[in-house]
């Protein structure tokens, strides 16, 4: 039937409704946007501050470090723009509003993504991309076709890796409603981790965050590939190109955890 709306139209309608509802609170919207612009800048400033006291970080110069920070920030902000609002799920679960989400003939995750989208995050993602472009122009990158492809794919893979952590982390709310800080340790903790070359972290910590959770594939490894330098930590030379693969694995794992979590949803009393 020509007149039957498509599923895409359903998500577009959810997004439109959310944007219209947001504009009802103009002042708080303006304040949020200004505050988030400041926070993005602070992340980059923290790298500048570090280089006031040291000429190199784990063997990386200022411009190299800035490139890694720029990649990390771009990946995080892209992810945050799309699924950062998954935090609201905790509130949905606590109050039982998650019932209403399950009662609609749409998939849960896209409903949350489109239905709670916050437009101020577009501004942050755009800023992060500008910072990345600046970092790329300062860094010593010899451009090849492979690196050109990588510079586009790297922030996307990084965003998917962060997204997987966000989704898996929010899933803990199905078991423990007050699990916010635990999940934040991995999401926002992961963001702070990826800003710097992994060599600055002590061994066990690096093993967990960089390799087990895959955070090294967000910015550090793609950064090495772009700069064309071997890993000072001596990892194999193909790893810097593996970020998209890691992103697919992370997304698959997160999807599995998510499915189990939704089955564990307990709702609340009537």
């Amino acid at each position, binding site marked *: 039937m020509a007149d*039957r*709306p498509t599923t895409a139209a*359903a998500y577009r309608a*959810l997004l439109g409704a959310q944007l219209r509802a947001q504009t009802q609170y103009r002042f708080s919207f303006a304040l949020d946007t200004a505050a988030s612009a400041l926070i993005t800048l602070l992340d980059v400033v923290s790298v500048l501050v570090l280089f006031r006291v040291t000429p190199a970080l784990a063997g990386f110069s200022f411009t190299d470090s800035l490139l890694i920070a720029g990649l990390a920030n771009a990946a995080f902000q892209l992810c945050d723009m799309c699924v950062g609002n998954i935090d609201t799920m905790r509130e949905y679960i606590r109050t*039982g509003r998650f019932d*209403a989400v399950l*009662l609609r003939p749409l998939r849960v995750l896209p409903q949350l993504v489109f239905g709670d989208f916050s437009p101020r995050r577009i501004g942050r993602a755009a800023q992060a991309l500008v910072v990345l472009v600046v970092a790329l122009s300062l860094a010593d990158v010899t451009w090849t076709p492979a690196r050109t492809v990588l510079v586009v794919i790297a922030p996307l893979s990084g965003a998917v890796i962060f997204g997987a952590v966000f989704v898996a982390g929010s899933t803990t709310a199905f078991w423990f409603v007050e699990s916010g800080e635990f999940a934040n340790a991995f999401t926002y903790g992961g963001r702070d981790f990826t800003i710097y070359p992994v060599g600055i972290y002590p061994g066990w910590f690096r093993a967990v965050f960089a390799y087990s959770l895959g955070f090294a594939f967000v910015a550090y490894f793609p950064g090495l590939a772009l700069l064309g330098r071997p890993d000072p930590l001596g990892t194999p030379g193909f790893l810097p190109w593996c970020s998209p693969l890691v992103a697919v694995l992370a997304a698959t794992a997160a999807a599995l955890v998510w499915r189990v979590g939704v089955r564990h949803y*307990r*709702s609340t009393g*009537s």
Partner: protein
Amino acid sequence: MPLIETTGLRKEFTVRRKAGRFRRRRHAVAAVDGIDLAVERGEMLGYIGPNGAGKSTTLKMLTGVLSPSGGEARVCGLRPVAQRTRLARRIGVVFGQRSQLWWDLPLRESFRLLRYVYRVPSAEHAARLAECRRLLDLDEFLDTPVRQLSLGQRMRGEITAALLHGPEVLFLDEPTIGLDVVSKQAVRSFLADLGAAGDTTLVLTTHDLADIEKLCRRLVVIDHGRVVHDGSLAELHARYDSRRRVVVDLDAPWDGTPVPAGATVETVAADGFRVTFGLAGGTAGDLVAALAGTGSLRDVSVLEPDIEEVVARLYAEPA
């Protein structure tokens, strides 16, 4: 094949209880403990029981919100959790506390959005909306943001929202709770007409006896997660000999005036000025008319049989 069918449906929740200062012992508590149910197309089913009996939990399993811990459920031939999104298109759900509406947007906007969410062709959507607007008197608050609606207005909006995609089954959890008398009447008679039309199967939970009388041809009473009665309201009252009561205050002590058939004197206050009659048959009107003839009648009140009390007695009865 029945439209709704469950066999041995169970839901257990794990509860941690204190066992000493720091230790917590885990207990499995069955909220729904083996329910067998078959509901045919077009039925109007009242699902009743005391608080905590497992009514909402059952509805949540039938609508795909909760996964059962055991047993089987089929609604419209679908498995509610595994085929959740397909089922959602074919059922309507009104859970009073879980709004389907957009809080910050006018009611009209919510209805427009639901057309996209449920993918309803515009002509069908417009026709159903027009009918609900007429029958539920929505026009005066259609442009009001949902958060500013009164509870009665919002409930009328929720019912409309649940019907715009033409569901085969409408599940309602306490649809009249907290409403004022006028809204209760409006909701009740709308649902009665909807059920009478025969296209929509109604399943509702309620504590309100008037809802049950007006809306439920069949009652399933549950307690502690099990079905304790399945039949009509008349059968329920007959089985437990529950009756309406008429309490009268008199100007003179009760003198034993003959009362119409079906009415019996249950209690007489010590001073004789207040008498309680039980009505097994006949009407309160006949009884009051007979008493009014004596000239000493001052005040009358009619007490409906208490469904909670009936349910409590049901459960106390050895199986």
